[in-house]
């Protein structure tokens, strides 16, 4: 799309877009292409020689039990984070939308965790779930009789990073849900009320379907968040441990590539992640355009 009336200049438009293009070429496309090349190469540890090995890196990757485990962990982690943060966000937003008088106050009180870095959320929850000093850990031990030990037990460590990641994301979801709820025409709700639908029924049959575009968008954003932006949480809390129980894909790329210096393998992992995020983005744009649209 472009304006009907435009300026004419030979050089100016190129000059204006140049900084953007330079940065994207240098720091996005060139590295991406390099990654693509590295993923089909095997290089010696000193990076002097590399040989072309077709898709060996990828076959090695998908036959590596550690990588397959990491995929499983990531899916579980991502699904848990999305479920926890979306359901709490939606619940609070629905309540806030009912509380007509206090909306602005409630928003202020819920919006700030958005600004907390995932890594700092990790520190807060590391303390709350600390096996010796944490109050939430204490509650878990007392009420559920669990021998809480995230340093040794993988499932406990997983719970820890899910809590830290989901907590931070609640406010993001809340902001979108409250905006989505406010956009639902009041007349529809009123009409349903006159027809005798109870508040719960109204929520299920009117609010929820009308909210589905928001719900879809938020789900996609939560998946992207839990896949890519939770690196800080894992790095602060567990470093992928114990025994790789919290080694999500993004953290594994960092560990294998940057710490372990396995160029080819790490590049192959990067390419897998890249195709994943391309897939999600394409899906998002396809659906946002087409399917999930109810209001004109």
């Amino acid at each position: 799309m472009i304006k009907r009336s435009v300026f004419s200049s030979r050089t100016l438009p190129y000059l204006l877009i140049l900084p953007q293009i330079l940065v994207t070429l240098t720091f996005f496309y060139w590295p991406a292409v390099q990654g693509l090349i590295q993923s089909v190469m095997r290089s010696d540890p000193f990076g002097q020689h590399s040989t072309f090995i077709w898709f060996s890196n990828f076959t090695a990757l998908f036959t590596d039990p550690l990588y397959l485990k990491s995929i499983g962990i990531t899916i579980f982690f991502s699904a848990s984070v999305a479920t926890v943060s979306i359901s709490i966000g939606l619940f609070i937003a629905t309540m806030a939308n009912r509380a007509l008088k206090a909306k602005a106050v409630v928003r202020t009180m819920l919006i700030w965790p958005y600004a907390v870095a995932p890594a700092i959320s990790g520190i807060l929850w590391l303390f709350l779930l600390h096996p010796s000093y944490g109050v939430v850990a204490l509650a878990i031990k007392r009420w559920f009789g669990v021998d809480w030990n995230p340093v040794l037990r993988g499932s406990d460590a997983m719970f820890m990073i899910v809590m830290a990641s989901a907590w931070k994301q609640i406010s993001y979801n809340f902001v979108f849900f409250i905006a989505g709820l406010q956009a639902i025409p009041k007349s529809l709700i009123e009409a349903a009320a006159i027809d005798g639908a109870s508040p719960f029924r109204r929520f299920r049959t009117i609010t929820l379907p009308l909210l589905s575009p928001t719900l879809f968008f938020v789900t996609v954003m939560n998946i992207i968040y839990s896949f890519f932006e939770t690196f800080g949480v894992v790095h602060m809390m567990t470093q992928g441990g114990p025994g790789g129980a919290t080694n999500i894909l993004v953290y594994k790329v960092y560990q294998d590539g940057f710490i372990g210096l396995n160029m080819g393998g790490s590049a192959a992992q990067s390419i897998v992640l890249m195709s994943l995020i391309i897939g999600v983005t394409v899906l998002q744009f396809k659906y946002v355009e087409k399917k999930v649209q109810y209001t004109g």
Partner: protein
Amino acid sequence: MVEKTPILDILTYVFLITGIIIVGFPIIYAIIAATLPIEDVSRVPMPLIPGDQFWVNIQTAWTEGNLGTNLMNSFIMASGITLGKITISLLGAFSIVYFDYRFRTLAFVSVFCTLMLPVEVRILPTYEMAANVMSPIMKIWTALNLDSVATWIAGHEITLALDWSILDSYTGLILPLVASATCTFLFRQFFLTIPEELCEAAKMDGASPMTFFRKILLPLSKTNIAALVVIEFVYGWNQYLWPLLITTNPKMMTAVIGLQHLIPAADDLPYWNVALAGSLLVMLPPILVVLLMQRWFVKGLVDPDK
């Protein structure tokens, strides 16, 4: 509400308050812990009455965590990223919307596709790039064997060696992050809604493109800029992976990463009060920005397309 449901209304407020408390709990608890001396913070369960050690803990965190330097670095990085992103996106969107040239669509698509290439999926190659920004030129030079060509032309031995590392520098922290698909997209969408007449009138009055940009587009974009300032400042401040990769010099460490050194190790004394005091201090600037500019921030976060 539509009909009167007093019980449901009370329940609503009860749930709402519970929700707010649950969401606020980690931070309230951290604030209390940050005011306690070490004996209290390591008691199980920790007392919930705030102590009087807040300033002491903050001071310890400040010196132990080297927060003075780190906060300054974070501030420079976050502001640099914010300013850079907004500037180059404004200019880019202006170029894409208000000019007609051959590579217009290509330029837009290539900027937009960076959305699919977060740092996380290109860690190593981007690091190599930062280690020597000139490496593409070097690679192409070597591939074309231009050394020998240059030698042949000049008649004596010539080798090209370009080296520009941006590791451990503000340039390195800021520059690779200033390309922004979202900002460019947002400004483009916004510019498209601006009435054609404005541009026509400006042209009729003989305004140059840049005058039009400065005098008309910029003032009109104020709200959008404000929204993006919040979003990008928070984004910049909270960066983790990229600064972790490219900074090794303690003088270049950012605040969020520096906090790692405050977390008590397993066999240390549990100085959680200090760690949490430091965390509170580091999370404060972006929270303040969000709260103070809440109205624009919500608008900017929610409004674009969807």
